[in-house]
């Protein structure tokens, strides 16, 4: 039986409360993982490990959060993603909402792309197909 969006959200919320030590009330769909919930780079891996366990799914490297994109000089010039970099990012992480980011693809703003609802959307596709 497919899981409802609310069931997925509740489970994602539990995962983030445990991984980031935040209060339940702080975990809203629009909350960003870094600015609002204080996630650091290692926390992204922790979140992936916990989601895999809690939903019994496999998350390949770079599938939920982009991987090694910023190390490639072809994709980043003067602190901004190049059109090729943006295209690669869109292709590898289609669950992210790029509508604001693509107007000014400054890499320092990339963390703002990762919201709680991003994870819910990704997991939903994984568990419900």
């Amino acid at each position, binding site marked *: 039986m497919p899981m409802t969006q609310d069931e997925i959200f509740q489970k994602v919320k539990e995962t983030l409360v445990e991984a980031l030590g935040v209060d339940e009330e702080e975990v809203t769909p629009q909350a960003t993982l870094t600015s609002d919930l204080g996630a650091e780079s*290692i926390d992204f*891996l*922790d979140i992936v*490990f916990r989601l895999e366990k809690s939903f019994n799914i496999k998350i390949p*490297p770079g599938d939920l959060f982009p*991987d090694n994109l*910023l190390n490639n000089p072809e994709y980043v010039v003067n602190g901004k993603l190049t059109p090729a970099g943006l295209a690669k990012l869109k292709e590898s992480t289609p669950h992210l909402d790029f509508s604001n980011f693509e107007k000014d693809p400054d890499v320092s703003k990339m963390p703002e792309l990762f919201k709680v609802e991003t994870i819910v959307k990704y997991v939903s596709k994984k568990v419900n197909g």
Partner: protein
Amino acid sequence: MRWIWIDRFLEFKPGHSAKAIKNVSLAEEHLHDHWEDFPVMPTSLICEGMAQTAGILVGQARDFKEKVVLAKISKAEFSELVLPGDQLTYHAELQTITPQAASTHGTVYRNGQIIGTVDLMFSHVDQNMAGLKFPKENFVFTGQFLRLLAGFVEARAQ
């Protein structure tokens, strides 16, 4: 003083779990500062003992080719104090390991009784997302640590 906070492995199951002991002694300088009138093993050093037990478990799982560093204390809870004369046992289980990182679950015993939990995350630093470079030699797993594994697994620094 040597930065080694486990005395001996009791058990080592490659890629699965490890159990190490640490005898707490009044001969250790740090206990006299923590505190002078009431020496107590600092919980931060209990975390370090678990990190060494679990870190060696993680390192061995990749044949000590990766530089394994403690990246996150996901959980650390203790219900009792540990005093001179007590024996600590660290039981670490490998939960997840990927090319970039690993997570472990740890149980702390004092004289055979469970007194705490220490869950950790380790990073394989050469695989870091920022692309930072580190020295070629494995500065994490020196001979001192590897000697602890003698009799359990064959371990050589890379």
